[in-house]
């Protein structure tokens, strides 16, 4: 068995041990098992990386032949190439850190073992998603992560609201999954295969703008919308913050929500063939990025702010994909995984210190109380705001540069979104860590720095948030763009169908200018945030006092209510109609009638079986006679037919 097969197997084993042994395995063991499984996967990934760099050819591993229907052969197989190996590093690396963090964060929870098991199951599904060598294996992982997300959002399911949040996430994702599934069916229909290599090879023969490709890419993108929380399927992600914070960090920031982006980059040749879809993707991305950012400005729940910022950042990634800058989008996936996981984990540490309080209006002045958390949170905040030289600057700037090339209006909107990001992130920082403490006396008494198992991951992620951007230096710095060079092989198909792909005609002066503008914009936004919220001068008012436009935005533009009115209520009344009128009068009557008929028949056959041996033999002989009689009767009928001349 290849070491690559073992990568997803470790978390599966961890899940089985912790899941089946839940309540029997002592908590002191459950944590190390979970972390160990994740760590072993990470080591496996490192080994896989060395294997990959030996040849630089994609490694294909057939685990077993799975489905053969006619000429369609679907194997359960893995493909390790430049794209999946980076995803593997992010998933197992960040995953291991978050597992470790969970050991501290969830330690006193009664469902600790279950939590570890679910995290491992998530890791397993996520690994399947990125390692699969065809769309079906990806789909299994895709559904698996959806399930785990549901299980983990509703982890504290004793609270009905949390359970509802989990259901919302699940249902919203189903809509996207349906699109994805239709996309896969279309691929099977048009290419006769689901294997990436075969599909992409065949796609090379198509022309740009082919209508079937537009349909396929469009449906696939609907899947991505659901999973990666884009307009209009984004409302589940903020609600998903009901889950424990490590879940928000791992699933709803670093890994699962980026799988839509992974999928599009994986299918880059198909998207390159469909510029119309790409344009659509770009605009959805811009809209989501700006829209979510405006909501983020007025949120007062520390995790909600981060959630909207995640939605917004995902919008940036799609924006990058939409302007054919796949690498830039992916670059942002990587850096975002670092700083957003960091921010969430730090927020978790804050919540931990605040004994469960999440409202930033009750915080303030935490800087001196929980120093490590505060510093790491600040690093994350600077990184996401796009200040040089932290990770976010490089990736966001690269996207913005490509957007500028593509469409100036889009660039302006993106820039405004980016300013808002810097603003609300620093608003969050200032309100949480500066000024004086606004919570209860009891909370103040309990304030403490988190244990080492939580702060170490914070520090590691802070380092990566700092230096993570150096893998993709802009051209004007005359340093190699390591990521782009590494990822080059996966765009072969795109280059083959579109010769212009990957050309980078931005002049150096323009690039300097763009960098200056975005840096300046970020700094201005930070400055505004400082003047307004520095030292917690203006604490946001209580919910009941919010008015005007602010109230609309604070209530997320009432999108949830709109969805409720348009989709949920009509369906509910329809189903009420069916339950109260159609079901009892219509179906039930028919079903009961048939059931009664069967019942009376079977009552008859049962009575015949009363136990008398004599009757048994009699019945047997009668049975034989009947059969022979039918045989004879059939023959007589045939003879008569032949005689009368009917054929």
């Amino acid at each position, binding site marked *: 068995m290849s070491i690559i097969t073992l990568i997803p197997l470790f978390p599966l084993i961890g899940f089985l041990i912790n899941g089946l042994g839940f309540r029997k395995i002592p908590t002191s063991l459950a944590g190390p098992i979970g972390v160990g499984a994740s760590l072993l996967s990470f080591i496996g990934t490192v080994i896989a990386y060395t294997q990959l760099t030996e040849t630089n050819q994609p490694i294909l591993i057939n685990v*077993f*032949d799975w489905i053969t229907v006619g000429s369609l052969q679907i194997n359960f197989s893995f493909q390790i190439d430049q794209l999946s190996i980076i995803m593997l590093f992010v998933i197992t690396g960040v995953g291991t850190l978050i597992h470790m963090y969970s050991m501290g964060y969830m330690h006193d929870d009664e469902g600790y073992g279950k939590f570890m098991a679910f995290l491992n199951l998530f890791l397993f599904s996520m690994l399947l998603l990125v390692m699969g060598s065809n769309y079906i294996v990806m789909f299994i992982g895709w559904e698996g992560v959806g399930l785990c997300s549901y299980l983990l959002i509703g982890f504290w399911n004793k609270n009905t609201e949390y359970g509802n949040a989990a259901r919302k996430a699940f249902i919203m994702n189903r809509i996207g999954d349906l699109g994805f599934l239709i996309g896969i069916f279309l691929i099977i229909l048009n290419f006769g295969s689901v294997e990436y290599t075969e599909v992409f090879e065949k796609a090379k023969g198509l022309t740009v703008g082919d209508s079937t490709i537009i349909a396929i890419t469009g449906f696939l993108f609907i899947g991505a919308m659901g999973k990666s929380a884009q307009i209009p399927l984004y409302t589940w992600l903020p609600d998903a913050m009901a889950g424990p914070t490590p879940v928000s960090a791992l699933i709803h920031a670093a890994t699962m929500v980026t799988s839509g982006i992974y999928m599009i980059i994986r299918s880059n040749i198909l998207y390159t063939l469909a510029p119309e879809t790409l344009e659509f993707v770009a605009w959805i991305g811009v809209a989501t990025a700006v829209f979510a950012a405006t909501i983020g400005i007025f949120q007062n729940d520390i995790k909600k702010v981060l959630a909207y910022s995640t939605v917004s950042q995902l919008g940036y990634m799609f924006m990058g994909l939409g302007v054919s800058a796949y690498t830039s989008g992916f670059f942002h996936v990587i850096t975002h995984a670092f700083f957003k996981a960091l921010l969430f984990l730090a927020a978790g540490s804050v919540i931990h210190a605040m004994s469960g309080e999440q409202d930033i209006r009750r915080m303030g002045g935490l800087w001196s109380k929980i120093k490590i958390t505060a510093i790491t949170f600040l690093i994350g905040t600077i990184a996401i705001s796009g200040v040089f030289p932290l990770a976010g600057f490089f990736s966001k700037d690269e996207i913005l540069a490509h957007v500028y090339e593509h469409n100036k209006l889009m660039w302006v909107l993106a820039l405004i979104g980016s300013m808002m990001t810097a603003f609300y992130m620093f608003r969050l920082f200032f309100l949480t860590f500066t000024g004086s403490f606004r919570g209860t006396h009891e909370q103040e008494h309990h304030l403490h720095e988190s244990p080492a198992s939580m702060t170490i991951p914070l520090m590691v992620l802070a380092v990566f948030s700092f230096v993570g951007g150096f893998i993709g230096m802009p051209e004007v710095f005359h340093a190699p763009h390591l990521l782009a060079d590494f990822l080059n092989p996966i765009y072969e198909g795109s280059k083959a169908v579109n010769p212009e792909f990957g050309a980078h005609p931005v002049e150096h002066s323009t690039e300097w200018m763009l960098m200056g503008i975005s840096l300046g914009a970020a700094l201005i936004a930070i400055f505004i945030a400082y003047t307004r919220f520095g030292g917690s001068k203006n604490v946001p008012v209580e919910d009941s006092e919010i008015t005007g436009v602010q109230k609309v935005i604070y209530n997320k533009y009432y999108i949830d209510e709109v969805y409720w009115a348009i989709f949920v209520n009509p369906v509910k009344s329809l189903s009420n109609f069916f339950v109260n009128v159609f079901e009892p009068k219509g179906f039930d009557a028919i079903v009961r009638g048939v059931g009664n008929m*069967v*019942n009376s*028949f*079977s*009552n008859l*056959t*049962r009575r015949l*079986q009363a*136990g008398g*041996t004599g009757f*048994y*033999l009699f*019945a*047997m*002989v*009668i*049975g*034989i006679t*009947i*059969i*022979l009689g*039918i*045989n*004879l009767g*059939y*023959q007589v009928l045939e003879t008569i037919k032949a005689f009368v001349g009917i054929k």
Partner: protein
Amino acid sequence: MLEKLSHILFSTRLLLPELVFAGVFLIIVTIVAFTKKSYHSHNLYNTLTISILITIGFVFYVFLSFLEQYFDSGVVLFHNLIYLDKLSIFFKLIITVSAIAVILHLWIIGYKVVGEFYAIFLALILGLFVMSMTTHFLMLYVALEMVSICSYILVAINKSKSNSEAGIKYLLTGATSSAVMLYGISLLYGMTGTLNFGSQEFATFLGQNPSWVANVAAFMTIGGLLFKLSAAPFHSWTPDVYEATPTPIVAFLSIAPKVGVIIVMVRFLSGLSIDFRLILSIVIIGSLFIGNLSALWQNNTKRMLGYSTIAHAGFMLVGLLALSQFGVQSAIFYVTTYLFITLSAFLLVDLLALKTESYELESLKGLGQENIFLGLSAVVIMIALVGFPPTVGFTGKLLIFTALWDSYQDSGNQLLLIILIISLLNTAISVFYYLRIPFYMIFKDPKGGARRYSLDIPKRVFLLIFIVLLVYLFIKPDLIMDMIEML
């Protein structure tokens, strides 16, 4: 003369496993005869029987791949009395596996049986072995009687009143079916002049008769087989015998003889040069409806499973009705997987009865809450019996119905379509009674409040193996299908 002698010696060599088997049978009989009757020696017997079975099973497994190297298709032994080919070895393998499972079941649940049981058990298996490698009516009849007589004794071996009653019922109905079968055989012999139903002349001569006359003879001939298969109209013994007999024995009787019968049926029907579909269809329809409709009302799990086997006998015959190579293969697949499903169902029933000391459905209330593993197992096993995914029961039914559909498409025979529809309808009916078991276990509340009920490790592992197998074979049916396609 010398030539004959060498043929006999050659034949004997190929039947060495069976001879060893007969030897062990004699050894056990001797032990039983010359030692004190003791219920404590069952460990010894269990070990002995299982080891001989495993050895034989291994020999068969090896033989399966070797046979092709020496003989192209099959080999005729003892002047047509025995016909050994890969199909028969495969079936002998299946029979061995089920026998091993049954002895394990017996052992793990802790049944204490007398030493004679093992001797008779081995003799029964020997009879089945012979049955699965003959195309000769004489040998078939001898083997069938060997199986029957052993079965009668096994049913009555506990010497309680209900056992004896069940044994007598079994014996009387069995003897009648045997008589019918003998009558049929004699008619066929009269028509064809040969007892070897695998031979070319049998087919030629039979084809010269009017088909309805030949049908009468053929139907009577398979009477004895249908009796073993518990198909209508030879089914009436089933529920009574099932209810009274110790569960492992029922489990064995409900699978091993049927396996033997199916291979004989495959051989007999493929050699039959007349249109036999009408009669077979009636048998199928009768079995399906009688089995499923009667099962609906049963409140005793073992009786219910008894009726369920009647219905399953119908499903097995559906595969044969297709009369194509694919049909035969799917019937064999169905039988093979049905083996695991049935064995696990009876094991489950027994494990439940350990707690409740009753086979009544009422007593199962809430058991699934008291032991979640048992509850989930019940769901999986019953779903497999119905034939829903993700269990191998689904694969089996799918293959059979596909074979029938293909056959209908090829021949355009309306009868096949009718059978297909009736089969599907019956599958739907069967949902109701199979799922009652998990329903009672999980959704009904236990009578005196829930008490945790835990199984010891061997029982749990044994059941788990079956459950895993049922699901695993759904994911990878090739494991068995490849073997069958090779035959």
